[in-house]
């Protein structure tokens, strides 16, 4: 995208712009969900769309996730390309059957005869005291179940480019956006939630990890917030003479094993950081890949840092204790390099 005109956009505006461009391009694309209309999405994912496209194509639904996500399946079967929003990923339990038994499996069960070009977008993440039922990422919960692509971009550039890819993809894509990276006025203001975004439509491939910082001493794998924490930690590590390579996973499914294995070959040390629960999570999968395919490259045990298998507690000191952050990453990285 070199040489094209860019503006600084927040994450949410980048996402909404992607949807807008695709809706202009393809009349079969429409949006459905709770408060996606006048409100513009609780986390701004559909900002401005209702005003441009009206209630026929940007549809507020009742609080009936099973029905409207299931309806996306039925509409997709009819050649539409629905984008549905599950307001918080934490609500998946009321509608997971439609997502994983139907959306994810129908293409396979039909021997590829039924295409379901659906984007299920959903807000993830904590850190602002929204407690146990509104703060999860649940990356692995979705990534474990085959049939859906599961992506989780970390920058406005990727939010736009991967959303466009997701909409154009003929397969169901679970598109997780991190609340704190939306750049909303009413949350923590992070530099990372604003970025240069080209005006026109462009795609970022689904399924490619991104080496966001090169280094030779240790590989740190993160996703969304933990990528940004890792980058911050890397700066501090640099001052100690430690060169960390930071990989932004971006996509949980398909998973870019190659980029991770290449990096381990170079650094010989692996730290995986996740805002999801520790056990049976993303850190386990990445560590397992290292143990299976990169074992001889490792010069120290793999280290995993994630939410220590408790629900997200409400009170700030408790929540901060369970969430990964730059300081914790820094500490672990130093230990690992000295191992």
């Amino acid at each position: 995208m070199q040489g094209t005109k860019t503006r600084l956009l927040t994450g949410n505006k980048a996402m909404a712009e992607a949807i807008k461009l695709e809706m202009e391009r393809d009349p079969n694309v429409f949006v459905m969900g709770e408060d996606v209309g006048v409100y513009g999405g609780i986390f701004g994912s559909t900002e401005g769309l209702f005003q441009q496209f009206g209630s026929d194509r940007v549809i507020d639904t009742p609080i009936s996730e099973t029905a409207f996500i299931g309806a996306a399946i039925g509409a997709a079967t009819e050649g539409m390309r629905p984008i549905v929003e599950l307001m918080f990923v934490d609500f998946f339990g009321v509608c997971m059957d439609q997502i994983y038994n139907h959306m994810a499996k129908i293409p396979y069960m039909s021997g590829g005869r039924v295409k379901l070009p659906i984007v299920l977008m959903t807000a993830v993440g904590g850190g602002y005291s929204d407690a146990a039922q509104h703060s999860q990422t649940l990356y692995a919960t979705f990534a474990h179940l085959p049939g859906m692509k599961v992506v989780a971009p970390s920058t406005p550039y990727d939010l736009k480019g991967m959303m466009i890819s997701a909409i154009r993809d003929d397969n169901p894509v679970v598109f997780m956006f991190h609340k704190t990276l939306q750049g909303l006025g009413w949350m923590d203001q992070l530099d990372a939630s604003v970025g240069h975004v080209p005006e026109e439509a462009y795609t970022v491939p689904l399924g490619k990890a991104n080496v966001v910082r090169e280094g030779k001493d240790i590989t740190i794998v993160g996703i969304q917030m933990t990528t940004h924490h890792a980058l911050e930690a890397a700066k501090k590590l640099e001052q100690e003479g430690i060169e960390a390579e930071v990989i932004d996973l971006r996509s949980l499914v398909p998973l870019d094993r190659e980029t991770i294995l290449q990096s381990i070959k170079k650094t010989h040390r692996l730290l995986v950081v996740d805002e999801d629960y520790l056990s049976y999570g993303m850190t386990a999968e990445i560590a397992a890949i290292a143990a299976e395919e990169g074992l001889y490259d490792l010069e120290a045990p793999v280290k995993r840092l994630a939410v220590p298998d408790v629900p997200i507690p409400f009170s700030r000191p408790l929540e901060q204790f369970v969430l990964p952050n730059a300081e914790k990453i820094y500490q672990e990285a130093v230990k690992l390099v000295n191992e």
Partner: protein
Amino acid sequence: MAISKNDLLWMYENMYKIRYYEDKMAEAYTEGKNPVFNIGAGPVPGEMHLATGQEPAAVGICVHLKKEDTVTSPHRPHHHAIAKGVDLNKMTAEIFGKETGLGKGKGGHMHLFDPDVKFSCGGIVGAGIPHALGAALAAKKKGKDWVAVSFIGEGAANQGAFHESLNMAALWNLPLIVVIENNQYGISVPKTASTSVASNDVRAAAYGIKGYYVKDNDPISMYEVSKEAVERARRGEGPSIIEIETYRYLGHFQGDPELYRDKNEVSLLRDKDPIIRLRNLLISEQNIAENDLDIIENKAKQEVDAAYQFARSSNYPNPEDALKDLYVS
């Protein structure tokens, strides 16, 4: 209401075909499972839910449908599939797990998808209703007069998806018709032990829509109320619920010990079989010659026999094909 002879004959032919299909499936299912029944053995392994006895529900409404209309069906799907015109060869091949099947053997009897006639089914109780809702939404968005029919059992009417979908269909005035086949049981649980009202058509009041009730497993009454419901839906007058009193002659699935019901319940039901009743009516009231019915029956049998033949003579997929079709491209 006057029903055309054509429609009556269409219904008869399809009821006959369904019955013959299911009887044949019941037989095929036991192959390889004798003398010791093993659900995973034989040419047709896995669960098998047959619809013998429930034909009126399927034909009484599908006679009003065209190819562009959508049908979603539950775990007991064969009668709906046949009435909707699903490719019988490919459907049967799928049930036998063959590569020529609708889903190349990946789906099986509970997972038949034939987009050519907009038919789908699935093994999760109630889950097909939202899919039909979505098809109805698409029809409205496209400005078509297409309707979507979702068949469910009476047990499924107590699943949340039922409520959510009907509220949305009513709210958006969509051409969705939910047909509830009240065959009296959800597996072993009688309707009185699962449902707080005598029949689900009264639940239409919860959505401000039309509710219809069909007594006595009667294809003619089913035809009549369905005609109204389908025409209303096509005219943009919104969704409706049809409950039909029907009966499953066989167990919930093949192999069901059926300890929860009286041994002679079914023989009493068979005495008033709707296919025989319709046959008699065609002869006595429509002056159809027995011979003409024989011709129809033979044609149906041949078609079904050919489908089984096709299925049996088809190849199994290659084992490694299991890895294909996860994504389309």
